[in-house]
């Protein structure tokens, strides 16, 4: 589905493995609901008037001096402009180090048999094309509801989620945004509890 949100409210379900492109105006609030629990929602943010001004995972991490995202986290761009703020979060923490799955990274991680399994970056390219987001415009995303512990010894793993049915995260747009979402289809690691499920998007603006 593609949502060009000129309505006052958004209320839609994104099926497991599907995606969405949502235009959220400055001040708009977008809530992502993990309907069944432990569902990674891979998300990218772009300034709707200049898509080169896009989300930067590692500038965001540096600016908040912490790896995990939660309420109060400012999502900043490569220019260090604030794109959105996490204004509510009943899950507690979200990843932005792990990136999105792709057919090619699945092959590296799990083997050749995964080559033709659907992957998040296919969804990003499919839904992003409409507004000029292609391969060059993809960047490192947020994984809402995903649990990627990073440790003091420099280790990193993908683990079972901390989320549960009905947990949600709410973002408030700091400027007009394209929010590009892939409801992750990954079945080879625990990021979706081995079973991808639908999510709900709710918007107020």
């Amino acid at each position, binding site marked *: 589905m593609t949502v060009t949100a000129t309505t006052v409210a958004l209320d839609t379900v994104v099926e497991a493995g599907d995606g969405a492109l949502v235009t959220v105006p400055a001040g708009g609030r977008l809530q992502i609901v993990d309907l069944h629990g432990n569902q990674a929602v891979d998300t990218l943010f772009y300034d709707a008037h200049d898509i080169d001004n896009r989300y930067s995972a590692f500038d965001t991490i*540096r600016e908040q001096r912490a790896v995990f995202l939660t309420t109060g986290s400012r999502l900043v761009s490569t220019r260090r402009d604030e794109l959105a703020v996490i204004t509510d979060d009943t899950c507690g923490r979200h990843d932005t180090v792990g*990136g999105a799955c792709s057919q090619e990274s699945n092959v590296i991680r799990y083997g050749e048999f995964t080559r033709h399994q659907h992957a998040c970056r296919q969804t990003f390219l499919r839904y992003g094309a409409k507004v000029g987001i292609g391969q060059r415009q993809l960047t490192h995303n947020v994984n809402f509801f995903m649990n990627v512990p990073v440790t003091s010894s420099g280790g*990193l793993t993908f683990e079972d989620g901390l989320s549960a049915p009905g947990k949600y995260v709410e973002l408030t747009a700091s400027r007009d945004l394209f929010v590009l979402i892939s409801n992750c289809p990954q079945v080879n690691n625990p990021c979706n509890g081995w079973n991808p499920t639908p999510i709900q998007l709710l918007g107020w603006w």
Partner: protein
Amino acid sequence: MIAHAHEIPGDAAWSAPVRAGRTITLTALADGANASMLIIGADRLDRLNIPDTLKSQMSARIKPGMVLMSDRGLALATVTASSLDWHDCLTGAFPSRLLLLELIKHGFGETDLHACINFFSKVAVADDPRASLAFIPDHAHAGDTVTLRADQDLLIFISTAPHPLSDEPAASVAVQLETPANVKDPDLRDEAVRALRLTRELIG
């Protein structure tokens, strides 16, 4: 055989093509050096992908024995040796002005900015609920080195601006490109071996 040697002064940027098989050795010329690096692969589209590099090798830092992977699951370079076992890759480079100018020289632009490696810098992670970060000021010393082997033809972009969380002055970094007889693969995880094999099969 040393093919090319260059000294990048502090707070400057440099870029160069590096042919497959050559090695790139960076040497810190003063304490507290930082070398932020971007990498673009042979086809001028496929870029360094830090998340894929980290998750496939279960690491939140860059260290010897890791393959630096591209967006499309290919090996860009292998970290064959380093006097340090922790190079930051979680906190980016800001401002990106120096790197951006080098990208533009090669026909790229802001669209091609991607997560960099901050060689010689360490940002420690705390085992607290948010994985808080703290810059480690005395991590690198004059003489510290890191060596990469190019696993395909690369463009590399290096900025010697101080790490964005550092209060220390900028330091110069020496770059040496060599054409070695043969660089054996270090001990690698299976995922890294797969990336190298695919790269050799497809564009080797």
